[in-house]
């Protein structure tokens, strides 16, 4: 009997109201998800290093990588991370037009990156099944390309919502922030990929 009186909850106005506002919930969720995603890429990186460690010649003859296009691609992708940040800065100053401009440029850069990757695939002269190096190369860059594509869709979604519904302002810009974080993530993964698949094959 005493127990049940103990369980009677106290009523408080502050705690009832506090649940409604969780502004940072979605960003925190995205970060948690990206931790998980990096572990998946980590699985691919580790596999690549194990396979490379066991091989006598790496990459095997006939499957050398071309450096020109991917280097240009890298420069474009890395700079796009700065461009997208300008968009985020713009919306925080309530500059919607500026945000659209910078996000539009980022989307364009992302599209150029994907086009460059497609060009690279078509001109390399070997395919997915040629040898273990080619397996890793196409699978890992392909997987990353898929993530760039998703990031591109997010940015286009932001632009569309901004134009169609007039979303986003200096006080409400969580969606913009999330697209930016995702884009940075894709960029960081690419830097690791570029080091592993391209630069380290030179040594």
């Amino acid at each position, binding site marked *: 009997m005493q127990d049940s009186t103990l369980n009677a*909850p106290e*009523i408080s106005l502050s705690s009832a109201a506090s*649940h409604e506002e969780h502004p940072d919930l979605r960003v925190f969720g995205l970060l948690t998800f990206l931790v998980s995603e990096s572990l998946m890429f980590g699985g*691919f990186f580790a*596999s690549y290093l194990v*396979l490379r460690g066991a091989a006598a010649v790496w990459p095997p003859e006939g499957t050398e990588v071309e450096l020109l296009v991917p280097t240009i691609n890298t420069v474009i992708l890395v700079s796009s991370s700065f461009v997208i940040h300008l968009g985020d800065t713009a919306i925080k100053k309530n500059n919607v037009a500026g945000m659209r401009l910078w996000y539009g440029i980022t989307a364009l850069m992302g599209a150029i990156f994907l086009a460059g990757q497609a060009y690279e695939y078509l001109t390399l002269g070997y395919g997915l099944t040629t040898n273990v190096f080619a397996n890793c190369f196409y699978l890992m860059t392909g997987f990353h390309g898929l993530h760039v594509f998703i990031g591109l869709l997010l940015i286009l979604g932001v632009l569309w919502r901004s134009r169609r519904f007039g979303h986003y302002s200096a006080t409400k810009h969580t969606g913009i922030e999330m697209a930016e974080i995702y884009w940075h993530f894709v960029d960081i993964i690419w830097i690791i990929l570029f080091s592993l698949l391209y630069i380290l094959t030179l040594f």
Partner: protein
Amino acid sequence: MTQLETSQITTVVTEHELHQRWKWYDYFTFNIDHKVIGIQYLVTAFVFYLIGGLMAMAIRIELNTPDADFLDPNLYNAFMTNHGTLMIFMWIVPAAIGGFGNFLVPLMVGARDMAFPKLNAIAFWLNPPAGALLLGSFFFGGSQSGWTAYPPLSLITANTAQTMWILAIVLVGTSSILGALNFVVTILKMKVPSMQWTQMPLFCWAILATSVLALLSTPVLAAGLVLLLFDINFGTSFFKPDAGGNVVLYQHLFWFYSHPAVYLMILPIFGIMSEVIPVHARKPIFGYKAIAYSSLAICVIGLFVWVHHMFTSGTPPWMRMFFTISTLIVAVPTGVKIFGWVATLWGGKIRFTSAMLFAIGLLSMFVVGGLGGVTLGTAPFDLHVHDTYYVVGHFHYVLFGGSVFGIYAGIYHWFPKITGRMMNETWGRVHFALTFVGTHLTFLPMHQLGLQGMPRRVAMYDPQFAGINHICTIGAIVLGISVLPFFFNAIWSWLYGPKAADNPWDALTLEWTTSSPPAIENWEVLPVVTHGPYDYGRTVEVNQTVQTASI
């Protein structure tokens, strides 16, 4: 607080149409209420439990005699593979994390729902197609390479079935990752402000540790399975040694997830134990902080022990040593928990309810299984009994005696909260007695079989093992019968059982402060935490605090 403020809150809340209940058909739709999703998880998991159990029955009947006279060996392999896969991925993980986690975590931390309700529903609805893929693979020969799907075997058996298996596991894995991130955000960000970290129920600590583990390890399995999928279907050779691939690589990727998966299955169960034992022993839990931190310790150490599954895979001696030691270290936080529960029972006013019986049964089982794990974690002994029935006996003690007993304990404990009706205690005892006897009868002799050298995963065996196998089969039939009183009891009580009070066990955690079953938005006003979750015997003191606070 003045009277006026209180009445204002009530008005606001009535507009939210509180105290409504879901209709039966709401449970078959894309519902975003965490309680509905929890029940969906639990019921689906129990369906797969029955299917997996029937497969186990078929396997044991086959093994009753040394010849393959009941099942065709290929079908035996498919049953063996899918029994393991279903029980791990479609039963224990969804029931323990998805079911109990979804139903209880928001209630326990005082939230109205999970952080991302729609994502939560998506995570659940990935499960039925995964189950359909697994069962559908039987039309294509069935996946036959065991639940580990080691190449090169998985590359040469029924390819379509194996691909379906991979897709099923990737779906379940995605579900698990989405669920885990939801739990992490809910627990870290949506705990009511009045609840201190040291007032959070131990079940939430366990789910937090589980979720971190799932977030870190599941994606690596996904990576490995994607590589396997490409090897099977698109002509790559990641795991084909003759073309520069590496089979042991798969084992690393696989066990980097699948060893932590053991803790994914057992940590939520540890959480359930930490709730059930103090409530039914009427005592504060012994060593709250030690139990909470040991969950986190298991989560961290659990990520560094996976190679103990690979002692026979050509692992170099230094690696065997490292992973033997790290494996044995996991026994320390686990032991901390066990001692905490035993010390809680010590001198408590124990009520031998069905939930408590299963909790105590779990303790005894888990000590046997855990000690078996210590022996297996030691490289020299593992080399001797590797891939024998000793291993089968060990992990069934941990997974059946550990996880399944825990899920039953949780069901008996929270059934009144989930359904609003009490379960029949007499049938609960019958269920417990049959399960307890059946588990020992089935799995204890398997240790002896293994020490004598009977290999696992085969349909035919040397006649010298026939006697002990016969005992195991009898035990398995007892286990098979044991689910009948449970299902009868659960269904009957859900429909016609006596109405449950809001707090039938006099528990102190937040979920018991709502009605049974909880209304759609859990509370009219969010509760304020004034005492720890297990503060039994401090009633007077706490009551005074409450009174002082309300003045």
